[in-house]
């Protein structure tokens, strides 16, 4: 006989305001199997939990139903309390009456009736609960970091310093990400390369870090502690172990006019190239879309000039599989494409550029060596307009969010421009100035008061060319006047969007992402580093627009999570997995085919002499994720899923009848 206790939480007033908790407790006391039913102001508080613990002991409860907030919030809390009182935690269930009832229905009669229904449903389920024990699985002590921007590098370094092996995968030829493209950083105006390159070198030299650049993660199998990852190493056509990085090949390459990714299209590179002089590893790569040797089998200059014979036109891609215990996703961001706003003429006019392109122009190692020459004719830009919120905060264009970093970098770029062109004039069109962050507001004020940047509150309607000037037509919403400026260069603070191709990667990892493609965190407040999949963590701007200090601190956070996981030898896994009854299983193979994790195998059943009598399915509990697809497809219902058994689903349905 089940002896169930029902505990109804007021959640302060969040539940009791629209639910008559006393009436609900009285009703629950009459349910089949319920021997104890109470309500309390804060069940999750320590006295609230003690109420449950004492009741378990005094009333000899065999099941606990807590009617409170969503199980995603406090299920672990209450299960722990039950465990401490000597009750198997899987006898504790949560009836979600706050999110599903009190917060969404204002009428107290309706709310109370629905609450009683929801409690009855959970009581019926709890009556059919079974004792479950955690499953123990071994952990592979190795981490994978996907993406080697500043977040990925920081996470890899922290994990490696913690004594664990790390594999760092980067899809570009060099690590460093967008931070390597930047000129100087906010608010201290540190040279970006100067603070980043030592970390890049550390990452490449660390004994615990294996670096795979020009590589992509193409497949992920397994589960927390036991992932199996397949990495494709794209052919560089340059042998990494032979190349000395002398640079003769890219000095001699005749293909000179290729717009490269690193210089964001404002600089030109060769067909064999290193993205930047500080590239790590300092090994060139051949662009197979532009190299005449690879395309038409003509040229071959780089092979001729290479003093060490490192060039190999026959190089093939390499597939590497690695066993991994934990994964950090640090796949970063991109900017909106340049045709996003036709009226701004980006893509049509060479002198309308985005923030990253201007960073390259500002950068001492950039295509103009740090001189503010405009892309169209190389003339020094005497006046520049910076436009903020280009794409960001524009729901009509599908980007309602704020890109967060643009206020700061537009302010910084205006300041750096003035440092380089003293007589020049910088205008910033803005919607709001959002300068939250340590030293950020002061930085913006300095730009306005000391550096003479002109801030104009309003939007730009159109940009067009007149002679060799760009006419920027917009509105000053503070004075209410139309404004028209003739300038040399326009810099758009374009909206940040997730990197190209990341959705396919996230699908391979089975992690969730939001409508824009940013990785979803497990809980917005309390689990901002965990993804929806156990053992996979996130760092940096793959979650949402983020500046460097935020990305770095999150990366360190992710690294500490990984280190905590890898510090254990065995992992305790939730026992909510499927088990197949061999006596019922007819060996039809349906579940084997349906299982998304390849966790089910047909195994022979033998007699004493070793003759195979028949085959029956068996679930590998280490691999099983507990989706229950096998239960649904089985014609004879041989599998059952712990935690939500067939019996329980039917009990829940019947309770509503």
């Amino acid at each position, binding site marked *: 006989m089940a002896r169930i206790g029902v505990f109804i939480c007021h959640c302060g007033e969040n539940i009791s305001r629209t639910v008559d908790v006393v009436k609900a407790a009285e009703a629950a006391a009459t349910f089949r199997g319920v021997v104890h039913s109470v309500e309390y102001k804060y069940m999750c508080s320590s006295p609230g939990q003690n109420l449950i613990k004492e009741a378990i002991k005094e009333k000899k409860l065999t099941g606990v139903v807590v009617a409170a907030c*969503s*199980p*995603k919030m406090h299920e672990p809390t209450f299960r722990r309390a039950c465990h401490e009182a000597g009750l198997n935690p899987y006898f504790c269930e949560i009836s*979600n009456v*706050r*999110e*599903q*009832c009190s*917060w*969404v*229905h*204002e*009428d107290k*009669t*309706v*709310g109370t009736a*629905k609450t009683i*229904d*929801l409690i009855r*449903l959970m009581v019926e389920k709890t009556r059919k609960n079974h004792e479950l024990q955690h499953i123990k699985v071994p952990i592979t002590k190795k981490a994978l970091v996907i993406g080697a921007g500043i977040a990925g590098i920081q996470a890899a370094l922290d994990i490696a310093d913690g004594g664990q092996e790390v594999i760092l995968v980067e899809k570009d030829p060099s690590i460093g990400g967008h931070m390597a493209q930047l000129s100087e950083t906010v608010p201290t105006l540190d040279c970006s390369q100067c603070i980043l390159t030592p970390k890049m070198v550390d990452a490449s030299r660390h004994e615990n870090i294996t670096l795979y650049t020009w590589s992509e993660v193409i497949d992920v199998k397994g589960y927390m502690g036991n992932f199996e990852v397949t990495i494709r190493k794209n052919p560089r056509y340059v042998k990494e172990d032979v190349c000395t990085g002398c640079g003769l090949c890219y000095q001699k390459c005749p293909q000179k006019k290729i717009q490269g990714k690193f210089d964001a299209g404002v600089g030109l590179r060769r067909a064999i190239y290193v993205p930047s002089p500080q590239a790590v590893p300092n090994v060139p790569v051949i662009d197979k879309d532009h190299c005449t040797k690879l395309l038409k089998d003509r040229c071959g200059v780089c092979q001729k000039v290479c003093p060490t014979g490192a060039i190999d036109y026959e190089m093939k891609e390499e597939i590497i599989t690695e066993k991994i215990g934990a994964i950090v996703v640090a796949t970063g961001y991109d900017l909106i494409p340049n045709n996003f706003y036709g009226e701004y003429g980006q893509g049509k006019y060479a002198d309308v550029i985005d923030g990253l392109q201007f960073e390259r122009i500002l950068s001492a190692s950039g295509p103009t060596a740090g001189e503010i020459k405009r892309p169209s004719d190389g003339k020094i830009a005497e006046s520049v307009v910076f436009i903020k919120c280009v794409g960001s905060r524009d729901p009509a264009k599908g980007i309602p969010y704020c890109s967060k970093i643009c206020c700061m970098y537009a302010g910084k770029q205006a300041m750096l421009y003035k440092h380089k062109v003293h007589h020049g004039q910088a205008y910033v069109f803005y919607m709001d100035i959002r300068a939250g962050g340590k030293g950020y507001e002061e930085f913006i004020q300095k730009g306005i008061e000391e550096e003479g940047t002109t801030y104009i509150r309003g939007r730009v309607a159109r940009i067009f060319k007149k002679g060799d000037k760009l006419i920027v037509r917009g509105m000053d919403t503070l004075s209410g006047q139309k404004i028209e400026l003739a300038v040399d260069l326009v810099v758009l603070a374009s909206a940040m969007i997730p990197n190209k191709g990341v*959705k396919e990667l996230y*699908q391979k990892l*089975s992690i*969730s*992402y*939001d*409508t824009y493609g940013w990785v*979803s965190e497990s809980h917005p407040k309390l689990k901002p580093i965990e993804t*929806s*999949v156990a053992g996979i963590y996130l760092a940096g701007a793959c979650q949402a627009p983020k500046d460097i200090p935020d990305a770095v601190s999150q990366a360190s956070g992710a690294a500490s999570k990984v280190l905590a996981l890898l510090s254990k030898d065995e992992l305790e896994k939730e026992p*909510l997995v499927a088990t197949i009854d061999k006596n019922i299983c007819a060996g039809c193979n349906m579940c084997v085919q*349906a299982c*998304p*994790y390849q966790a089910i195998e047909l195994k022979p059943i033998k007699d004493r002499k070793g003759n195979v009598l028949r085959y029956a399915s068996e679930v590998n509990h280490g691999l099983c*994720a*507990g*989706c*229950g*697809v096998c*239960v*649904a*497809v089985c014609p004879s219902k041989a599998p059952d*899923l712990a*935690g*939500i058994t067939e019996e329980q*689903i*039917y009990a*829940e*349905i*019947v309770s*509503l*009848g």
Partner: protein
Amino acid sequence: MKQNAERKTQDAERNAQDAGRRTQDAFEPKIVAFLCNWCSYAGADLAGTSRKQYAPNIRIIKVPCTGRLDPIVLIKSFEMGADGILVSGCHPGDCHYRSGNYLARRRWMIFNEMLQFIGLEQDRVQFSWVSAAEGGKFVDVVNKITEDIKKLGPAKEYNAS
């Protein structure tokens, strides 16, 4: 002041609605919602945390994945007196269990045809994809199915034997 007046009218309207709901002749359908744990259940939670109001007729049963549901579960729900059923999972490609929602989709396409065979209107079982970020969509889905079932009236008594 203006807001107060508005609120008062809204309250009056709501009370009138509630009075209607409580009278015997107004049909209040019983709707069972099977929500997957990772997307739609979280979407329902988000509707709650955003304090979005919706029709109170649904009773949510949490399942790990919509792929966990056997059509017999739905038939049993009708047998137990449900007037409508909502099955809601993750968007294609977003399944926490990789492909459970695809299996579910194929299953429901066939099940829909079976519904007519057993004499139930197709609109009584509705399927949707609601992500953890779509609290607003969850509200719309619930309100729509409630309206649809109200129009259809009570489900014919269905007896498995």
